[in-house]
């Protein structure tokens, strides 16, 4: 009768005769081996792993561009204009004879620099404004009205307008996009702060005699970081697109520095006949933006598993 596997060290003679023993239930699903470490991480958060991998790849490309069989991305060669992709020019050459492969790889530097800088700057500034606004009603009503005003202008238009006031440089592009993105981040942080202030653990901290500044830094700030990090990835992705748009319309990175927007802008005239000049930077931009967004989605799911299940 007994089909049960007895645990080791248990004497079957101890089982009284006639004992009703439950039959073990079969496995409905194939057993899952819980894994720790890298494989466990990939299985738990596949989106984050894919996004992280792609972003790391782009980062390596940007850093090691000089060693990846590139030529000088600004070297002109009028005689070798608009060559199709081949063994010599992997992505072909543009209308000034520059190697598109080298330009695209170096262009990754601008995109990633702009994306990461804007994400960090906008997060830090937005975090500061959001926390202060979330704690002080007077500051809140003034600052948030200003932010509402800024948000009523599409961020790309705001960035274009700001760029029109200054000289085109990567630094100015970063500043312009950061200013355009700060309102959204500070709104998010303010909302999170306001909801965290209602949390019982904050009320318990008040009851435990914690001073307001300490509550801000020990209880509120650490808990805003998770949603802020997720938001930062989206800001980063959006900033890379905005940079490309600004460069594309000639209001961004100066033409001497190769950036994906610049390369596409220069290839625009020849789009019908030589599509590869636009195609390669566009693919790189898409992959990078996708990577950052996947990373953000993965982070969000990891931070709030319940939200992930609902969506």
């Amino acid at each position, binding site marked *: 009768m*007994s089909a*049960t*596997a*007895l*645990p080791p060290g*248990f004497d079957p003679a*101890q*089982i009284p005769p006639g*004992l*009703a*023993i*439950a*039959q*073990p*239930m*079969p*496995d*409905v*699903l194939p*057993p*899952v*081996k*819980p*894994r720790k470490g890298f494989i*466990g991480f990939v*299985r*738990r958060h596949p989106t984050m792993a894919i996004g992280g991998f792609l972003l790391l790849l782009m980062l390596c490309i940007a850093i090691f561009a000089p060693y990846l069989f590139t030529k000088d991305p600004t070297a002109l060669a009028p005689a070798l204009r608009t060559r199709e992709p081949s063994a010599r020019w992997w992505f072909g050459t543009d209308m000034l004879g520059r190697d598109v492969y080298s330009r695209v790889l170096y262009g990754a530097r601008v995109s990633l620099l702009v994306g990461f800088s804007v994400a960090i700057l906008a997060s830090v500034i937005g975090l500061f404004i959001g926390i202060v606004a979330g704690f002080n009603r007077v500051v809140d009503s003034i600052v948030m009205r200003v932010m509402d005003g800024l948000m009523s202008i599409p961020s790309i238009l705001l960035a274009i307008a700001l760029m029109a006031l200054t000289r085109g440089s990567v630094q100015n592009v970063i500043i312009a996009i950061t200013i355009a993105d700060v309102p959204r981040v500070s709104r998010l942080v303010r909302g999170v702060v306001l909801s965290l202030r209602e949390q019982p653990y904050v009320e318990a901290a008040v009851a435990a005699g914690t001073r307001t500044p300490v509550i801000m830094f020990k209880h509120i700030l650490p808990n805003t970081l998770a949603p802020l990090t997720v938001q930062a990835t989206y800001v980063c992705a959006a900033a890379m697109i905005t940079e490309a748009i600004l460069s594309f319309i000639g209001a961004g990175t100066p033409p001497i520095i190769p950036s994906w927007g610049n390369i596409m802008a220069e290839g625009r005239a020849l789009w019908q006949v030589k599509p590869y000049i636009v195609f390669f930077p566009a693919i790189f931009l898409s992959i990078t933006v996708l990577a950052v967004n996947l990373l953000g989605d993965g982070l969000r799911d990891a931070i709030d598993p319940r939200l992930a299940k609902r969506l």
Partner: protein
Amino acid sequence: MTEPLLSVENLQTHFRTPDGVNRAVDGITFHVNAGETVAIVGESGCGKSVTSMSILRLIPEPPGKIAGAIKFEGRDLLKLSDKEMRKIRGNSISMIFQEPMTSLNPVLTVGRQIGETLRLHQGMSASDAEKKAIEMLELVGIPEPGRRVKEYPHQLSGGMRQRVMIAIALACNPKLLIADEPTTALDVTIQAQILDLMRDLKRRVGAAIVLITHDLGVVAEVAERVIVMYAGRKVEEAPVGKLFANPRHPYTRGLLGSVPKLGSSLTGHEERLAEIPGLVPSLKKKIDGCVFAGRCAEATDLCRAVAPALETKGPEHVAACHYALKEAAAA
């Protein structure tokens, strides 16, 4: 003996998770006769809600997987197509959930939501459906049903919303009503209203009820038969009077001992509450032996090694415990 309305045989509902397979429900067998009220009690995570969702096949597959047999009026629900299953849901089997606010659609009037099921399952016209909706609201004791039928869920109080949920569930004259913690979110005086309503409706409508709850007081008030679940398994089943008077399984005894009874201060029964030490075991690992052995004061090596099967301990009374048998034999 006539065939039961619903018979669940060796139901297993497992979920795939990155940490292993969660054996949320692991081999539960029970039946519900026509017109009967059966309560499934247990603490959170014991699998009682998953059991009720499995009956209606509301478990997402994957990551879930249901095995076993669920026979309703002789047909195995697990073998039906999705289309046939949709005809059963809300029609011959319907469900009431715990949260009346989230289970109602906030942008549709109450009348539309009651009428929807009628139009869907019985092909009623819009005007007939509204008439029937007003009748249903009257049945569940909502004052001024003619006005309320045009209102939206947010205009109603929590108790009213739960009445509307019941009206929707009963609109198609179901043979089986599954109520998953129907009064848990409500205040005591409103809970009393809803329990009264459910008892009254049962007499008038005659549907069988499967009541999922953690509240032993509610069980004592409305159930005829009780199934006690622990860690995805049925550990005891008995008619309500027998279960409360003579619980056989140590878990059931612990559960009954850990709730204070109203009136304890007057009858002098002011002893300490019984505690069940420890925590519910993880369902992601296979448990050798009795699922309750880890928290049971009477557990022996035998319990930890060999899982007890459900055994008849008295008329209509089964329990899964090696030692409950001895007690019964001695008595």
